[in-house]
Every structure is written in C-alpha cells, then in structure tokens.
C-alpha cells in the first residue's frame, strides 16, 4: 500500500554525501566519549531543540543550571499518560465528553480524524520537557501507518497509544506489537495475508524499512526474496475484527489459527537457514515472536535502527567517521542491551559528538518543528478551557502543516517523509519555493493576523513575549535583540545581522528612543487588541516576521 518503489535508503544516502555537502565543510568530529565541556545556555538549548519542538525560554532557563547529566536524565523521562481525544463535533452523533475511541455511536470518521490530528498537535504543543513527543513522531515516521488509508481513526488512536507506550522502551517488543496492530494490519494488507495466498506487503516493509534494511553500508543485500516470502507466511492469520459483511467490529486485531500457514518456514543463509515452525495451534501466534527475534539477532538490524535515530536527532549525513565512531558503537550498545532504546539515546545525547560545535544547527526544521516550535517558543496559548474551540484551532494549524508537506498521521508513503531518506536533498526537501512561501505565510498568520475559531483568536502576544524573553528588560533594545536571537536561532547570528534586525525596530533612531517608546507603551497598559498599541505592535510584527523569514530560523 502506498509503496512507490523498492526503497534503498541507505544506499541513496551514501551517494548523496559526496554530491551535496562540500567535502571541505567542517563536520562534527567528537566521538561517543561523554561531553565534558561547559554546560551553558547554549548546550541546554541545543539539547532541547533536538529533543523537543521549540524549547520555551523557561525550559532553557530551567535546564541551563542543571548540567548535562541531570538535563539528559530529565529529558529522557517517559511520556506522561494523557487523556484520550474528544470529539471535535458535538452534533455528529458522537457523545460529548465521552472519548470517541470508546464510543459505539454511529461513526463519523471524518470528524474523528480531525479530532485525532488536533489531539496529536495539542500533545506536541503542550509537551512536557521530555523527548517523548519527538520520539513518538520518530516512531510514527519509522513504523508508518496512514490514517486516511487505514480509514478508521480509532485504529490510528490505538496505534499511537502503542507507540507512546514504547516510545522510550524496547524496540524488539514494539516491533512484535506493531506487527499485529490493527492499523498496521489494515495499512499493509494484513487482512489478506492468509494461508495459501500470502500477502507479502507487511513482511517486506518489516524487513526493508522497519528492522534490518535492504542492504548493508556497502550495498550488500541483507536478505533475499525468499526470506520475505517466508516471513509473510509466518504472519498469516493476524487480522482485524470484522463481521461477515465486512463491518469493522473493533479497532483491535485478532489471530485466526485457521488462516495461519502451519507448515515450516525456511529462511536463507542470511538468517543461518533458520526454520520457524510451531506445531501446536495454540503456539501458532508465537511464530511471530520467533521471526522478530531472528531478525533482531542480526547486527544489521541494530545498525539500521541506530542510523534512523541519528538522522532524526543529529543529521542524515553519515560519513565514514560517523559510521565507525557513532553508529557502530551505538548499534552494539542497542544489541547488547537487548534493544532498549533509552540507554542508546542517553549515550548519544551525552556524547562529545552531539555537542560538537559543528553538530549544532545542522537540521532543517521539519514543518512540525517550525509550526509547533514557533507556537511554543512564542508562547501562543490555546484556549484549553474550551477544548472544542481548541480543537478547531488545532485543526487549522494542521492545515498549515499540510501545506508545508507534513501531513501528520498521513506520511506520504510507508517509507515516511522523504526528507529523512531521499537523496539528494534530504532535509532540504522540506524547503522549496512553494513551502518557503507557506512557511512565511504561517509566520504572518501567527504573528499578525491570527487563526480564528468561531469565538477565539489564536495569535502571538508579542509585547508579552518580549517581556518574557528579556526577563522584563525589554526597554533595552540590545537585550531585546540578544535575547530573541538567543532563543530563536540555533547558533549566534553575526553582529551585522543583529544590527539589521535592530534597524527594523529603530530605523536609524538612537537606542534610547526605543526605551522611550517601550516605556510609553508599557505605561499606557494597553490591552492586547487595543488600537492605541498598533504602532508598537506593527514594529514587533515586522521584526518577528523578518526573524521567521531568515534562513537561520529554519534550522534547528
């Protein structure tokens, strides 16, 4: 399903490195040795930018004095349990305040899908200081299912719930669970994978995209076609729960022993010619565990997963140095630790390599980083006390993400978003002449025009933000410039660029005139929407719109 071609991500990656990034460019050279340099606001910021969507000022301030060990420990806290989504509509047959995934009322899947997207975005926007939400998106991009394709948002809800539960957990266990997840069974044709006529769709992606990868770093195949066929036979019998006429009866899956191929499955020499075969019908289901265990005995599986993690948190560009000093030892740690992901993340996030000057600011913001990060960093508040209103606003925010080519819960295909694998370009794929305009328009919407729901407006309160980001020192123009740049850009911008930003606010006026204007503005105690504040707010809008338009703002 949604499969465009036989994808060989890593192979593509290797050819592009020499094509695109100039060989003379400085690259991170640190190893996995724990970082022992200074821990300042800059290091805290780098950690939070990589692991969250746009750290807020208060979060950077909280992490700066902690030092690295405490900071990383804090950021690796598991995801909190969160309330399930509510219905976005109270008029479509769903019952208000009853989480819709439990509702047996007449399904309105269109509204449920909208609701789930809003819920997903809301969780990202209101994330705690934790890597969890970003890991969730990582796993969504890794174990892809598409909500439109699955066509029942309840399935996608339980899929997300599973990913959340294991986001910092055991990869092997997650792989076993996801293989029988109802959304995955729908997305990759599990229902039609039955004894006698196996459907290889899931088995192929399981190997190629979810676990071991098609080829190793030298381009040698990691398995043969027969292995895919045998894996598909192992998986026969898992299916969604439907009535005789095809009506979905439950958003969960079941195992039908009668549909399971109970003959031995013979794997190739890539898997030491292993035979998977459970004889007792009560043990048929365990063949899945045998299959996943077999795949995870291979070093290549650990290497493949670690490379995905590296591309997500550091950079897609894996050169020989990185392969040897970062990927290989991390893969060993993952395998030796029975595929627990958290210790591997901890090693990476505490490494010299991660904090290397040349590893900072190297990723292009995904649309999620850009949109959710901007909302968070500028502290634009959703009306949480009006959940329905809030969902309407969130769904409109989702429209911006889709315009930027990131339709969350609907990746373009089973390989995920192409920015993480497609050569050439990779991250650059996010930004083309059309999406750059869309990004710019979102900036204007958030900063100036606002997003409207029937009764609410969602818009940055820039004077308030200025007070916040400067710790109430906003009457000093230089503090304004420095503190905004420090929070909003990944690295320091040049003195010239700061001067340029300052000119937007001052247009040739001496610094003290800012103090006069700001003081007058604050003393007047102007309400956020009061016309008498237009002059100052227009200045601030122009200032932040320009920040949003600067290339630096699109890097993470």
């Amino acid at each position: 399903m949604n499969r465009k071609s036989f994808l060989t991500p890593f192979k593509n990656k290797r050819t592009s490195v020499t094509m695109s990034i100039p060989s003379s460019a400085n690259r991170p050279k640190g190893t996995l040795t724990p970082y022992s340099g200074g821990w300042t606001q800059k290091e805290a910021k780098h950690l939070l930018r990589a692991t969250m969507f746009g750290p807020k000022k208060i979060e950077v301030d909280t992490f700066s004095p902690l030092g690295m060990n405490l900071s990383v420990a804090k950021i690796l806290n598991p995801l909190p349990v969160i309330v399930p989504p509510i219905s976005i509509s109270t008029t479509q047959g769903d019952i208000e305040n009853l989480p819709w995934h439990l509702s047996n009322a007449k399904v309105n899947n269109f509204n449920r899908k909208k609701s789930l997207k809003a819920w997903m975005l809301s969780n990202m926007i209101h994330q705690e200081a934790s890597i969890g939400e970003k890991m969730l998106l990582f796993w969504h991009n890794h174990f892809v299912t598409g909500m439109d394709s699955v066509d029942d948002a309840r399935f996608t809800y339980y899929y997300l719930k599973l990913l959340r539960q294991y986001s910092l957990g055991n990869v092997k266990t997650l792989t076993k669970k996801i293989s029988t997840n109802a959304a995955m069974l729908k997305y990759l044709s599990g229902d039609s994978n039955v004894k006698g006529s196996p459907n290889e769709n899931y088995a192929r992606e399981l190997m190629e995209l979810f676990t071991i990868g098609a080829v190793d770093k030298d381009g040698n195949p990691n398995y043969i076609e027969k292995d895919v066929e045998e894996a598909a036979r192992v998986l026969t019998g898992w299916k969604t729960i439907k009535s005789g006429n095809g009506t979905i009866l439950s958003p969960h899956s079941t195992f039908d022993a009668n549909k399971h191929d109970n003959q031995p499955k013979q794997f190739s020499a890539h898997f030491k010619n292993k035979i998977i075969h459970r004889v007792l019908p009560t043990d048929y289901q365990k063949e899945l565990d045998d299959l996943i265990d077999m795949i995870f005995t291979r070093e290549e599986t650990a290497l493949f997963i670690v490379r995905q993690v590296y591309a997500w948190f550091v950079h897609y560009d894996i050169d020989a140095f990185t392969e040897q000093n970062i990927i290989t030892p991390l893969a060993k740690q993952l395998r030796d630790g029975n595929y627990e992901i958290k210790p591997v993340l901890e090693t990476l996030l505490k490494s010299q390599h991660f904090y290397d000057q040349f590893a900072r600011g190297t990723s292009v913001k995904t649309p999620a980083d850009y949109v959710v990060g901007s909302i968070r960093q500028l502290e634009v508040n959703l009306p949480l006390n009006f959940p329905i209103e809030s969902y309407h606003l969130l769904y409109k925010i989702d429209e911006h993400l889709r315009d930027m080519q990131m339709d969350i819960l609907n990746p373009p295909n089973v390989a995920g978003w192409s920015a993480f694998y497609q050569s050439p370009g990779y991250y650059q794929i996010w930004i083309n002449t059309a999406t750059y305009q869309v990004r710019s328009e979102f900036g204007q919407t958030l900063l100036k025009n606002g997003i409207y729901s029937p009764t609410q407006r969602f818009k940055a309160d820039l004077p308030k933000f200025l007070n916040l980001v400067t710790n109430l020192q906003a009457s000093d123009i230089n503090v304004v410039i420095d503190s905004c740049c420090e929070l909003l850009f990944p690295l320091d911008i040049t003195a010239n660029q700061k001067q340029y930003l300052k000119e937007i606010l001052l247009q040739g006026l001496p610094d003290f005139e800012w103090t006069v204007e700001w003081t007058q503005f604050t003393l007047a105690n102007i309400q956020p929407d009061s016309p008498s504040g237009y002059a100052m707010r227009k200045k601030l809008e122009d200032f932040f719109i320009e920040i949003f338009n600067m290339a630096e703002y699109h890097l993470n």
Partner: protein
Amino acid sequence: MKRRNFLKTTSLSALSIPIVLNGLPFTSLANSPFYKALGNAAYPDRVMVLIQLNGGNDGLNTVIPIEMYPHLTKSNSQGGRSNILVDENDVLKLMYNSIDQSPGTGLHPAMSALSNLFTNGQLNVMQGVGYPNPSFSHFRATDIWLSGSDSNTYEQTGWAGRFLDHEHPNYLTTPPANPLAITIGSISSNAYKGTQLNMGMAVQNPTASGYFSGNIDTAPNSIYGYELEHIRKIAQQSNDYAASLATAYANGQNAATYPSNNSLADQLKTVARLISGDLGTNFYMVNMGSFDTHNDQVNSGDTKTGWHANQLQQLAEAINAFQTDLNSMTNSYGAMQDQVFGMTFSEFGRTIKSNNTNGTDHGTTAPMFLFGNKINPTVLGKNPEVWDSAQGQMKSDLDMQFDFRSIYATALYQWFGLNKGAVDSLFGKTFEDGTNPSQNIYDGGFHCNLPIFLNGGIPIATGVEEGKISASGIYPNPSLGLIKYQGLQSGTYQLQVINNDGKLVHDKQYSSTEMENGLNFGLPRGTYTIIYSNTKNKQQRSDRILIQ
C-alpha cells in the same frame, strides 16, 4: 503555493478570443508596457517615490525662514536656537515668496544640490506640513504618516495600500505581473498595507556595497552553513516577483553619476534603474535614518557643519542625482522625467528652541520637498512663524499649514487619476477638489487639488501609448468619455472594453459610422483597453485609453 501559479496569464485568461496587440504576437509583448497596463495599476507609467527621513527632521534647519532670524538668533533659554543656527549669510535663498510677501525662504547651505534643482524648476517646497494634535512618539507618528490616520484614530492599513487595494480588488486571485509597490530595504513599508496583505514588496538593494541585509553575511563553512545557503537561495527564488524584478533590473540602466558613500543615493539609483527597465511599479519607498538629532546636530563653533548638515547634503545630492538620471533617460513609456515625482517626509519636525546639547527635540510640523519634472516649482505656504506677536513671546512649536493627507490625496487624484469619491473614502474625509472657487487651499483643511503639479492637476497622459493610440485612429486620448475613431474600413466591428482588472466591461457590435461619430460607454475614470475586430475579415487591434 496559493498565489504563485496565477501570475502572468490570468489577467487575460477571462477572454477566450485570441488577442493581437498592435499586430505583434501576444507572447512577444509579454513584457511590453501595453501588456502590463492590462494587468497592472491604473497608470503603469506613473511613479511616486517616497523618501522617508527617519527620526524627525529639523525642518527649521532645512528650509530656513530668513525673516525669522531676529527670533531664531535668540538663545535657547529665550526660546531660540542660537547655538545651532547657521549664519544668515550662508543660507541659500530660494526665492521671494509670493504668498505672504515674506522676505524669503532659504535652504541650509549644505543643500546646494537642491537649490539648483529649484532653479531648474524641478523642486517644490511645502511649508508646515503636519496634522492636528500631533504625536511626539516616533513609532506612533510614523504610523500616522504611513496609515494616513488622524492623531486619535488607529488604522491597520497604509494609505497607499488602500489605494492599491481599491485599484486591484482581485489582487489575491489575480495578482499583477509586476510588483505594485516596492520598498528598497528589508521590510515592505506599512504604507503599502492593504486590508488583506501588504501590497508591496521589499527589495534588497543590489547596488550598494554597504547596504546590509539579513541574508547577506557569508555562511560558515560547515553543514550548518551549507543548509543555510540552500534556504537563502530558496528564499530569494520564492518571491513571486523575483523574475520580473531581475529582468527589469537587467534591462534597466543609470545615466547619471550618483554620489558615493550615500545610502539614499544607492537606493534611488536602484529605483531609477528599475523604472528604466520598465518594471511598471507605481510606488517606491526609500529610507534615510538618523534624523533624531537630540545631540550634536551641528559642530559647535561652525554651525553650518556637523551631523545634520551631512545628512542634508546627502539628501540633496541623492535627490539631485536621481532627478538628473531621470532627466536624461527614456524607457518604453517615454521620457522618464515625466513619469516620476518624489516626496520627502519625516514623522515630525523638531522644536523651535534648541537644547543645551546642540540639538533639538521632537516637534510638530516640518517642510516637505517634492521633486520632478511635472512638479509645480514653487514654495507653497508661508514661512513658519516662530514668534507669537500676540503674546509677545517665542512660540514653542510650529503651526500647521497643510495636512499631509492633502498631499497624498492630491497625488492620488491628480497624479494617479483616482476619482474623488474614492479619494474621500480612502481617508474617510471630504477633500475639496477646487470646484468651489472660494476655497482657500492654505486653510490646513483637506484638499485634493493642492497646486503641486503643473497644468492644474489634470492627469497628463505620457509615454508611448499616447503616440501610438493617436496614430492608430482612436481619439481624443485622454478622453472625458466620448471616444471616436478615424480611418476605419467600413463595416461592422465587435468592440470589447477591458478594465484594469482584466474584466470585460463592454462587448457589443457597432458600425464604422457609429464609431466615427463617437461612442460613449459611460466608463468610470481609469485606463481601459479597447479591442475591436472587424466581423468580416476578423482583423483585430487594440488600444489603451485613459478616461478622465
């Protein structure tokens, strides 16, 4: 993504018939003034250049009321400005002011370039421009000037933006092929803000070495730098008008020498070049900073030199070079000097009284310069009074003689040919248009017929279309409504009239006799394209005509 794909074709796509423009294939005319006229502003050949002097220019040290010297020479403790005043003998005297028989008006000695322009008949000085109850906040006062609001009303849109909105109601769905308004710099001016979006665009100045933009500093040699450069490149390319600007810039040129180390001159040089390259943009905004002279605006001991003198010299030389450039160039609309007029403005003037640090503080009104070949070359208004004879003391601030919105309104009415009703509605005021013979334009009220243009404010049809159209058989042009044809092959013709938004507003058959006798379509004021095709041999031609 939403707007990009509409460019270049949609303004004409409403018409299904093939159009032959003056016998040339359609595509070869894609860049011609004629083509642009169909999708662009009312007067693609009409340009207004706005020079914003940021900080509040000291008007009394710029346009100097010579008769006021007995008062100005008082010390600042007595309300005068002796510590910063230039010597009366150094003032460049402009002329004898015919309005109030005052002893004359002069320019600061650093502005010889502008006094020459005055002598050449291309400069107009307006005295005492402001608005009632002025704001002394830089931000708020700038906002008022750019929005055209009252002192106590707040307007989200810009005055020029509202005009462009009015002219281009379908801007969002059918944006014009070329930018309507340009700010040289990094941010499109708030003057261009329309109801839905800013109708202008910002253009980084490509000519100036010292002019900095946020995207210019070299990216570091790293992966970060590599990704940065990619995004910068995309940002440049993603501008809808990148291509048309690049084309106009490449096709354009400069004929005059501009002063060096002069940021304003650099900006105006770019403006002249874009006009010369037939960009067809109506508004250009350029900026000059550092007029906020609270301290050391003059060198003590030599008051005709110093910071403010340098500023004024740069301003004067930049304007003069720009006008010289316009005077010697033509573009496809014709002589450039006839297409452009410029205007300086600042958010406020400064106090009459100087302060103890050789500077001046925020004040009320200030003079403005207007320049161009079609400008009425005179001083409008009287010298500002600094002495309150009734009270027998120095005034604290200068009085207003002209409301700045009257200048905008006059420009819209007489330069861009906007109808008075629209002018009124753009500002929420009723402007006098000169139909009342007893009105006094010096009353500080709202007028759209200030005598700032030559020929009593009748729109001057300039440029290539005029000549071509009269040769082709349609006349008179401009017209008050009646349009006649001459030299037609006898027969029946299909006539189609297209307005500036590309809408077909009239489509009917007429005999050649009717056309020769004259047709009146009752068209509102504006520019139109009239296509007529012979119903028998299918020959077509089209003309552009201005209805006054």
